[in-house]
């Protein structure tokens, strides 16, 4: 069974540029999460989806971050414009309701 797929794995951009990350969850998992992991810290939840509905986006900086999960499967997380402080690893996870399965993450570097 394929795991959670994320792309790209690495992204380097200049500040004020836009960037997008893509996630394909494990088949059949209705719950999808986006986390941000800063260097030396644990992951912090940005947004959680139940199917196509965002049920928890309280930690998402809505002035520059947006996310969507059309058709309740794949998801895209966007930052526009990116700031230096957005440099981090962005992790996607999906859940079978008792356990989360994580993708490898996208390492974003903002110069």
């Amino acid at each position: 069974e394929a795991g959670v797929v994320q792309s790209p794995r690495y992204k380097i951009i200049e500040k004020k540029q836009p960037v997008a990350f893509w996630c394909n969850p494990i088949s059949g998992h209705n719950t999808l999460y986006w986390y941000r992991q800063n260097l030396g810290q644990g992951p912090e939840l940005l947004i959680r989806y139940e199917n196509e509905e965002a049920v928890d986006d309280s930690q998402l900086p809505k002035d520059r971050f947006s996310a969507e999960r059309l058709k309740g499967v794949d998801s895209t997380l966007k930052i526009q414009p990116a700031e230096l402080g957005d440099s981090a690893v962005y992790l996607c996870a999906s859940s079978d309701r008792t356990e989360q399965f994580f993708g490898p993450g996208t390492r974003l570097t903002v110069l």
Partner: protein
Amino acid sequence: AQSVTQLDSQVPVFEEAPVELRCNYSSSVSVYLFWYVQYPNQGLQLLLKYLSGSTLVKGINGFEAEFNKSQTSFHLRKPSVHISDTAEYFCAVSRLSGAGKSTFGDGTTLTVKP
């Protein structure tokens, strides 16, 4: 609200020695508890989880953890570590209700020396 405190940011240990990584949590509701391992440039991999039942939980790679409700702890142990266990370890809690919004600790770096 829930929070997780990993009491040691770095744990150096010699190969074949035992190790314990400590985790305390706080929550106003009942929780699930998890330990994850993260190798460099990789995502998180589940080591073990406590959902209910026996408080001693066995996981992959010879790790085990014990849930102590009175002390709100979930410490991770391994009786004999290998060089390959060198990694970052994260403790996490998730509310029983809903689909598991997890709160993570800041991680413990385990370094196994020859």
